[in-house]
């Protein structure tokens, strides 16, 4: 039984504006999967279809063999968590309270000692345990991303879906989070699916890479060494590059822009 099975998936806001077209792939075993592709190619829409936030116009998504629409909201939340990045608003919550909200699908009424322990451990896993009683709104954009990740972790899902979780992080924390997620997959059997714009980070840490290309089609899926190629980057991104071997992992060195169209 596949962990995730996407079959002939299409989605559009209208019949003329199709965002993704006939995308099919399977994730058979626990793995760290990165979805890459240029802006507006439907990466975020694809993950929103995968977690049932939007209904595809055609095709289907199966999670552990069941159609995503067959899950009850709480059941789906315990199976799959999606972490959009949180930003400041008028709400006043400590970092700990913000993370504890992620325990909703596991709680009955009150917050238990176990919930608090799990939330603290998630914060420590993201190296922000010392921020637990700080106001969430006082934190930087990078720290917001780490709190968002901690909230995704405390949901304790079997599949964790992340939308550009490292976009506001410095290089040290990008490396840390990516390495953490890769090891998390190895040690817990969780599947992590992450949308990213960073080809080298994806290439270094991902088990598999899904490449989306205009106009919302699946260009390819495979291991980084098979997918991250000069040809792919020119076809999909319209950029010339050199690929160098970095300890068996392809590393992209961008060279020049190719005229679009």
């Amino acid at each position, binding site marked *: 039984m596949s962990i995730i099975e996407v079959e002939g998936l299409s989605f559009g806001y209208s019949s003329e504006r199709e965002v993704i077209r006939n995308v099919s792939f399977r994730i058979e075993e626990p793995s760290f999967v990165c979805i890459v592709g240029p802006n507006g190619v439907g990466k975020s829409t694809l993950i929103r279809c995968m977690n049932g936030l939007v209904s595809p116009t055609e095709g289907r998504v199966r999670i552990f063999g069941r159609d995503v629409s067959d899950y009850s909201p709480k059941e789906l939340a315990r199976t799959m968590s999606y972490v959009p990045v949180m930003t400041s608003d008028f709400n006043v919550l400590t970092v700990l309270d913000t993370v504890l909200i992620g325990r*909703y699908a596991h709680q009955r009424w009150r917050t238990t000692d176990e919930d608090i322990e*799990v939330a603290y451990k*998630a914060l420590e896993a993201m190296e922000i345990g010392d921020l637990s009683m700080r106001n969430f709104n006082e934190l930087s954009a990078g720290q917001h991303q780490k709190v968002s990740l901690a909230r995704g972790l405390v949901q304790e899902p079997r599949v964790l879906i992340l939308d550009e979780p490292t976009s506001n992080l410095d290089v040290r924390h990008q490396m840390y989070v990516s390495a953490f997620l890769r090891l998390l997959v190895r040690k817990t059997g969780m599947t992590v699916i992450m949308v990213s714009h960073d080809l080298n980070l994806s290439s270094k840490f991902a088990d598999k890479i899904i490449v989306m290309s205009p106009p919302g089609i699946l260009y390819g899926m495979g291991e980084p060494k098979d997918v991250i190629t000069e040809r792919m980057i020119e076809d999909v991104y319209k950029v010339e590059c050199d690929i160098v071997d970095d300890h068996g992992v392809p590393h992209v060195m961008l060279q020049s822009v190719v005229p679009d169209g």
Partner: protein
Amino acid sequence: MPPSTDYVERAVDLWANRHESASPDSEERLHVYRRHVLLKYAFIGASIAAAFLVAGYALTIGDYSIEFWDTYGIIWDYITGNGTGSTAEFVVMTYRAPRVVTGIVAGIGLGATGAVMQAILRNPLADPYTTGISSGASFGATLALGMGISLASASYAVVANAFVFALVPMVVIILVSKMKSSSPATMIMAGIAVMYIFNACSTMIKLWSDEETISSIFAWSVGSIDSTSWTNVAIMLVVTVVGIASLQLLSRRLNVLSTGDESARCMGVNAGQLRIVSLLIVSLVAAAIVSFTGLIGFVGLVCPHIARMVIGSDSRYLIPASAAFGAALLLVADTLGRVIIAPAVIQVGVITAFIGAPLFLYLIVKQKKEAWG
């Protein structure tokens, strides 16, 4: 893999074994969290105590002199069936207590509904005014007083009209929320649009009315908690208690909703459904109060704001805290209105605006970025 794998591996191991071994800091962490929660209860307790004390003082105000501590004794004896039938008891239970209890119930209802409206519409300016509930009630009352058109018999003509029309904006907001591209912002804009329409309709009726009618419309619209009977208090009390108990049951879901609609759905909460159910409850509570008391501004706006600054946005605590603080603020405002230029009385709606508006301005200037992002 990067060279720092060992360091990351320890972090992953710690997380992977989260349920097996307690951290050495567990006790300290739990202590910090419990202290954090205790502060929330302390604020709720302090607000209830303040409302209790102000209520006692409010019961002493009037021509017939009654000592502060005696007021509690009179009410306790009456409730427990040990009433003496004294003049003091008659004065308190017939004239003064309905006003004070109305103040408490209205404060509780407006404070709590303000907190929930702000949570579900994710806007710190949401309250019965900005969602059009007050202007709907005002139009209903104006229709009854100015044109004699009402949905109920004479004694409840104004109240019934105010209640029914106060619910119209909610219907519009819910219809807007069903639209594909709606957001909390479009919902609040719909409320404001309805508010302008109702205000224009009310103005038209006033233009056609004589001076006496305009005067009675004005008297209704300036919020007041006097001239209420125990029957009215009972209706308000039942709607408010049932409504707030229901909202309290939804409070954990409201916390999840505060993270955003998509995020809430991914955590197991149907955001659209929860928003409609909550909006229905808060509209019923606010409409029930406004229809009896007229327009009492700023309680629904300021109380959740102050409570949020002190205890945070966790709806499980913010709803009761805003309710308790609302009761205290409304009683203080009403009491001030009765003593500032006694024996003349300034209506509570005027005082809440006088206290609430500068306080609100001060808070938004002081808070700036922290409160508004």
